[in-house]
């Protein structure tokens, strides 16, 4: 019996040779704007006193470089590490929607991210090591919906109006909600860091925060867009209006619109568009 065990152990090692990285070519040119592809939403929970978060943001960016338009990033500042603290961490980037999501999904560690608010290995909030695995599990699936988003920004009143048209590509029996989140990039503010390959340690004073959640139309859970099921080819349209606060730079703002299954809360399709 032991002999059998011993035999199972002998072929058990894979020593890899240099080079350890195999080139896979360049990222694809991206889908044709008219082509309908599945786009995933990556919502990262972060905070400015979280020392491991710059590494997480760097990973999210790297994944965006590889998956291009099919991956849409969002940074939610919530939880203990997003609390305002002593200078230079006096800023408060938390939002009601972000706090609600942080509580609802019981986020316990930072950085963590949800991919399409879908469970991977029975967890919603995932640690960095499995982000790519969770993306790979979904990214090659055919799309279930297509979102067409157009925006109009009125500078004096700082009002943003959006028109969105959602085309469902398959039959479904559930209800669907749609959310419009306003994100701002290019916010320069201090960030704690403990990885020297990402930036200065122990903090990066001029860290650039990108795709930070600023506001959500109708809160974290949005509004209903289709009730009682849909059939393939069904198109639903809706509009929304949001006002940008004075401190937000409209040139760096974008809207992320996403449709989700009202029962399971899983995201079906996402879309992103810059304000200007």
């Amino acid at each position: 019996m032991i002999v059998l065990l011993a035999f199972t152990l002998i072929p058990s090692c894979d020593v890899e040779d240099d080079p350890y990285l195999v080139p896979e070519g360049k990222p694809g040119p991206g889908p044709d704007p008219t082509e309908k592809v599945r786009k995933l939403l990556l919502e990262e929970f972060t905070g400015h006193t979280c020392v491991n978060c710059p590494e997480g943001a760097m990973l999210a960016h790297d994944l965006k470089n590889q998956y291009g338009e099919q991956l849409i990033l969002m940074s939610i500042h919530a939880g203990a590490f997003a609390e305002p603290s002593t200078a230079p961490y006096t800023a408060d980037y938390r939002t009601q929607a972000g706090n609600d999501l942080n509580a609802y999904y019981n986020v316990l560690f930072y950085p963590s991210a949800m991919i399409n608010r879908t469970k991977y290995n029975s967890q919603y909030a995932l640690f960095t090591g499995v982000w790519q695995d969770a993306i790979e599990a979904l990214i090659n699936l055919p799309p279930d919906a297509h979102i067409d988003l157009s925006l109009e920004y009125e500078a004096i009143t700082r009002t943003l109006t959006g028109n969105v048209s959602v085309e469902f590509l398959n039959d479904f029996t559930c209800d669907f909600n749609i959310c419009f989140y306003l994100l701002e990039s290019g916010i320069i503010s201090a960030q704690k860091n403990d990885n020297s390959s990402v930036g200065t340690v122990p903090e990066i004073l001029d860290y650039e925060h990108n795709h930070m959640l600023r506001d959500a139309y109708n809160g974290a859970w949005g509004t209903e867009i289709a009730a009682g099921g849909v059939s393939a080819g069904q198109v639903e349209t809706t509009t929304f209006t949001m006002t940008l606060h004075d401190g937000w730079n409209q040139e760096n703002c974008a809207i992320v619109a996403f449709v989700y299954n009202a029962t399971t809360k899983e995201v079906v399709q996402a879309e992103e568009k810059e304000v200007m």
Partner: protein
Amino acid sequence: MKKIIIIGLLLGMIFPLRGISQSFLENGQVHGNFQIDGAYYGEDSKLGITDSSLNGKYFRMNAFGNIAYTNGNFEAGLRFEAYLPPLAGFDPAYEGAGIPYYYVKYKWDKLELTAGNFYEQFGNGLILRAYEEWQLGYDNSIRGFRAKFQPVTGLTLTGLIGTQRYYWEPYQEGNRGIVRGFDADLYLNDLLPFLKGSKTQITLGGSFVSKYEKASKKTISRDSIQDTVVTKYIFSYKIPENVAAYAGRMNLTHGGFNLTAEYAYKINDPSEFNDYIYKEGQALFLSMSYATKGLGISLSGKRTDNMSFKSKRAEIGNVLDINYLPPLTKQHTYSLATIYPYATQPLGEMGIQGQIMYTIPKKSALGGKYGTQIELNYSNIRSIKKEQVSADIPIDSTGTKGYKSPFFTLGDERYYEDFDIVITKKFSSKWKAIVSYINQLYNIAVVEGHAGDPKVHANIGILDITYKITPTKSLRMEAQGLFTDQDRGSWAMGLLEFNIAPKWFFTVMDEYNYSNPDEEMQLHYYSGNIAYVEGATRISIGYGRQREGLLCVGGVCRQVPAANGFNITISSQF
């Protein structure tokens, strides 16, 4: 499949027990033990604990119950655990209740087989140690099969295969790996005729452990710049699915002299923990000691290089470790001396530790009537020296070999140093005292991840006096002081313990952080505790404010958050 067998066996035991077999009962025995740790948390504005941060979880409980049935050579048992919800500081992913541990074991003359969950250690644990530590919330038991075979006296062979405990997650391909191990332990004095009965005793051992985890796609993008044109390329990592580790060990004893050594080697194991570098891992553990009546001297040395070995590549938490890297430093017991505990750095560290334990004989000038015990300890742990693999690859670059590390060169960074002296003296049949001085250097940035914080230099003084009021009533007083200019500043501590042997224990204690740079945090962490012991049962109730800290057992640490409230512990066995 395994679950059905085990339920079947358990059920098979109930029916004969309920029915006629008294004789079965005579040979069979049922034993168990359990412990319930409960806490009721309250608000504490000074610590920043409010109703909302408690989130409705006022009462928390960690509990377990073990039960085992033995009948001759047969044994079966299980452990039920409940974390409803887990106490503050324990991993919240443990919330829930269930049976994470069950097994069936049978022992023949030379062979013992276990099916189900088991704990095991190969040598010093450098490549395999499955164990549990309830105070730490640590459990990496292996669920599978284990066989222990002793073909001849002096030779023990162990083989095992299984998956490790991962909170409450059942095994699924892709959620963790499979661990296989083999160990041989040889006691040469029984195997080699010329050594039989010799004063020199030699033990040799060798082990082999490998893990299999399905590779998942892992890619990274890199920029390539040519003539100011930046092109992005995608690279994928070659992930080894089978990672093996080997270890060899030796133990030599001659009279009072002992030498222990173990060396472990692990092939490339790119993981989230080491940032996907392909360097092999090495660990060396060496210890020499001399012991004779009244004197004990020990000197240990250790070197660890890239030896984090988990059965899940993507995991960075305190779970799924296959091996155990013992830290070298002395485990302190007095509370202020445990504010800055050292934790093993699996990615690289090297150090030495020396200890002398001496009893000044009774009735001598210095020793006094009862003798005096003196203990001296020194330890020094540093980083390993990392050098570039080649000129164009920075150290620790992901997707490369990472770094080179010459074996005998000391690293530049100091991780931990301590020196301490403990003197224990019994003055009379009523008075006993322990006096201790400790000097610590603690690299808080590396050990706790507080990047940028300066190293903590602390001087600690401890006085522990026991006064026997009557032969069974005693009073113990402790006074401690920790003096430092870094981190949270200095502390003073006082404790009073009144015991009525053998059943009652009354304690009051206060730790005062008197020179915290933040005046609002110059708090008293007071607490009181009453415990009652009857045989194997202990019931303890306490109330107070607990300081934030690290609880470390054997080098594995758990963050303990500051808290305020009641706690109760009930522990017993039957």
